[in-house]
């Protein structure tokens, strides 16, 4: 467990020794967070941490610091959010978490990546790029690295996402694909096109949606194949939607065929896409 108070003492001289809980504002307090943690409930923890958004609460610091290492992503995320509202405190943990991206265990990498993403620590991007190339990390750790790059939504994280798209784990690949579209000022979806042939249907679903949403014209042929032949109706639906977004008249035959698809998920989408062709 990280002990932020030790760090804090080393950096700032004016630590108070008070142990009395602050009870004010939205009704949040360190003791209520502790109770929620004891209950084991994700929802209770999130609710109580949110309640201390603007609360001066020294006793909360170590409790929330501990939550940055919780086993549940939702809890780690809200802990990171809490620190993002306290930038100076967040800075105390950033260096440590960045170090763990390079040398920590898979669990430490997971925690570090999620913290750095939730606190929007853009300076962590070089460390995230290096971490995704580390060997021996678990899929959970790799997923967190990719997720952090997605949250930061910076083009300097594209390398992380590209590597994530080549991951052996389908969830990592899917997460990387989805994150690609929402990177700020991202316009080219070329790296996603190859994922249209991914063996996992959830990845193909995501890839279809991304190339359609980003109007990646080079994806047309692959999408036309998917829309008429993929075994997964969700893939066929997303491919039909994507072809409509691309709007190329060459897709007419494939969409006509898809308009008669056996699945109601696909038919109307294909018909509408036909109307979107130029």
């Amino acid at each position: 467990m990280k002990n932020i108070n030790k760090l804090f003492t080393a950096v700032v001289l004016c630590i108070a020794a008070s142990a009395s809980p602050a009870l004010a504002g939205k009704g949040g307090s360190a003791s209520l967070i502790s109770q929620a943690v004891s209950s084991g409930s994700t929802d209770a923890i999130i609710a109580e941490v949110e309640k201390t958004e603007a609360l001066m609460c020294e006793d909360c610091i170590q409790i929330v610091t501990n939550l940055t290492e919780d086993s549940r992503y939702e809890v780690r995320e809200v802990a990171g959010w809490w620190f993002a509202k306290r930038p100076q405190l967040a800075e105390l943990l950033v260096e440590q978490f960045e170090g763990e991206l390079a040398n920590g265990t898979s669990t430490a990498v997971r925690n570090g990546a999620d913290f750095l993403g939730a606190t929007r620590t853009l300076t962590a991007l070089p460390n995230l790029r290096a971490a995704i190339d580390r060997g021996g990390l678990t899929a959970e750790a790799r997923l967190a690295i990719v997720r952090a790059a997605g949250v930061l939504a910076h083009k300097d994280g594209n390398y992380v996402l590209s590597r994530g798209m080549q991951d052996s784990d389908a969830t990592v690949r899917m997460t990387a694909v989805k994150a690609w579209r929402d990177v700020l000022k991202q316009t080219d979806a070329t790296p996603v096109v190859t994922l249209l042939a991914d063996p996992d249907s959830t990845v193909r679903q995501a890839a279809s949606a991304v190339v359609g949403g980003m109007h990646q014209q080079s994806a047309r042929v692959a999408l036309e194949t998917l829309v008429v032949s993929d075994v997964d109706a969700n893939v066929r639906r997303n491919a039909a939607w994507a072809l409509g977004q691309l709007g190329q008249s060459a897709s007419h035959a494939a969409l006509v065929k898809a308009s008669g698809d056996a699945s109601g998920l696909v038919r109307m989408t294909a018909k509408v896409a036909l109307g979107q062709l130029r």
Partner: protein
Amino acid sequence: MKLDMKTIALGISLLTTGASLGCNGSDDSSGPLGNVDSLVILQRPRRNDTGDIFQYTSYVPGARIVKLTPPTADGKQETLCCTNVPGFEKADISSYDISFDAKQIVFSAKLADNQAYGLHILTLADGHVDTIPTDPMRDYVSPIWLPGDRIMFTTNAIVEAGAPQHQDEYERGTTIQLGRINTDGSHEELGPRNLSHRTAPSLASDGRVIFTQWDHLGGENSGHLMFVNQDMEELREAFGKEGKGASNSTLKAQEIAPGRYIGIATARNRTINAGALVDIRLGLPYTTDNGLLADHQMSEANSSYVLLTPDVPTDNSASSDSVGRYYDAYALNAKDKPDLVVSWADGVVESSFLAAANSSADFGVYLYDSATQQRRPILDDHTMWDIFPRPLQTRTAPPVVSSADDPNLGGQLLVGAMNVYQSSLHTFNQGEIYGVRIQEGFSSEEGFPRMFGTTMFEGQASLGIAKVATDGSWLATVPANVPLHLQTIDNYGMSLFNEPVWFSGRAGESRVCGGCHESRTDTTVINPGITQAFAIGPTDARGKVARTDRMMAVADLANDSIITNDAQNHTIGTDRIVGMGWDKAVQPVFDAKCVACHNGVAGPGNPSYTISDPKTGASVTWVFNLSGNKIPLTIGGVTLNSFTASYFSMAGPDMEQIEKGGLMISGNFKVYMNPQDARGSIAMKTLNPSQLFPTVDSSKHAFAGTTHAAAKGFAELTPTEIYKLILAADMGLNFYARENNPHDSSY
């Protein structure tokens, strides 16, 4: 699965086994549900992750839409959708609406954990389901039928190509906005964006759509009912503002009768979308043969409400046994005390209490007599939330209500007022308003940290100033689909009054009001003919400028000579001053004119104050300092300042933090710049700005007395420098703006 059809007496009045007696009426002989053959009910697996009223992504597989015939405790339950539809085996369904002819149901469903919520149409005759094509990566929820074969919904899809969706007021959740699409899946349109969420649309008999909008601007932080036309134009306030609401948030409004709505009064957080039932009257109530109506003189000023469940909390405190909370309600008649079908859960309905107890709310369907405040159970499956009970009946479609768009606007939005001096919120002195400043809002989605500063305001950019004509009118063309905020300003560029909300409009829409939040019950009187602003034409307030270009030129950031007079002695240059990134645009002013004296060395020019914690005896001292250095200030393990010395000196500590932390301040403590109030700020009164409009005139000053520079014998701030400080204050006193977004610069 255990179905608990609670054993109410078979003979109670709500029971009926006869054929429908007609539509939308009530046969007193057989109870309020006497005319209802069947109720449609949504059953969602119980959960506890929807404490936030704008939560829309919760997913637990196994939801279904059922029909209960007759609508009684011993009625027959039939699953309408979608456990038997291929692809829907693991669906969760968040909401639904029955078509006007009662032959179809539109619903929002998420089919698997890796997917988003999408829209689907169930045809009741044969049970087949068609999926409406929507962006597979975006959520589409809360669908309702509109006349003209359209469906309205809320979505996190983004109307503005290439822009990210706004984050909410906590900078944590992606907001949802209004949109509509044809029932055949064609012609999807996304509405203009609020800076926070819009949710729970519902169709009114006059054809407008009522919904809940989260309003957040400085101290404003609550959910209000708003109206739009079916084309998402003509946004109008409905209920909850101006101190007229029953609670922090009002949601899930359903029309009882014209001008009258049943809604849920509750708090923003931890209430599982549930609260007290409130009977809202938007106008002056009157009685007819059809019941109590309230569509006469509808306005905030004339609105009122009646709490139908007075024991139920309207905040987020825990409800008690037998009191519980209501998830939603639908009126069966328009009596003064109406009969309702409701979804209600007993006991504590508050997310953190429930979660800590490892439990969840158990919503069931009940008939509620608001006169006697008695509930009669109809259906409660203890494994499910039984919500949104609706009679399976035909209903009259309201007229198609659309707005007149102007293609000549070229994709811009036209905003303005006929006479800005008419206001129900503020009294202006005739002639004191120079113009109206239009400001754009954005959240951290553009890559900002999760705080723009210490003042809790969102990011802002000044789009321009529209000069007010002598008849009080003004017009401006502004970007469509973005949150906008208006300030009336004086000849010194300082805000006289802030309109306390964000608003927005669609491309081609004209949002020209009577005044500046004028009384909705008064008539705006103008001279015959058109207003002067129409005759002159609108001010161009960056209506066609791309989002990424709505910022200052780099060369202008430290330029102290932007504002000057042109050959005709008219002020020019203010339109080049856009966002006030503190370290890039404001700090150069301090560096040039202030920091030589105000350098953090304690003395007469640099007063100090001490913040102490009485509990621990710890204390820290701050000395006035206008440098751009970062000077940490921490007490009791809590950070008071994360920004530069000049920012903290001007903005001061977060007083909410000081108050909540029980801290004491002693010494010479002052906040020198007030958010959205340059005119009331000590710094401005001390500097005493010279006139900026309509002509830059250094001989005229905003306040009596001399200027700080003259008193101390130093060079005056230039008009550009003074306006930067004014704008920094009036735009919320943020540290971050697009000009210093770390995401775009060196991070």
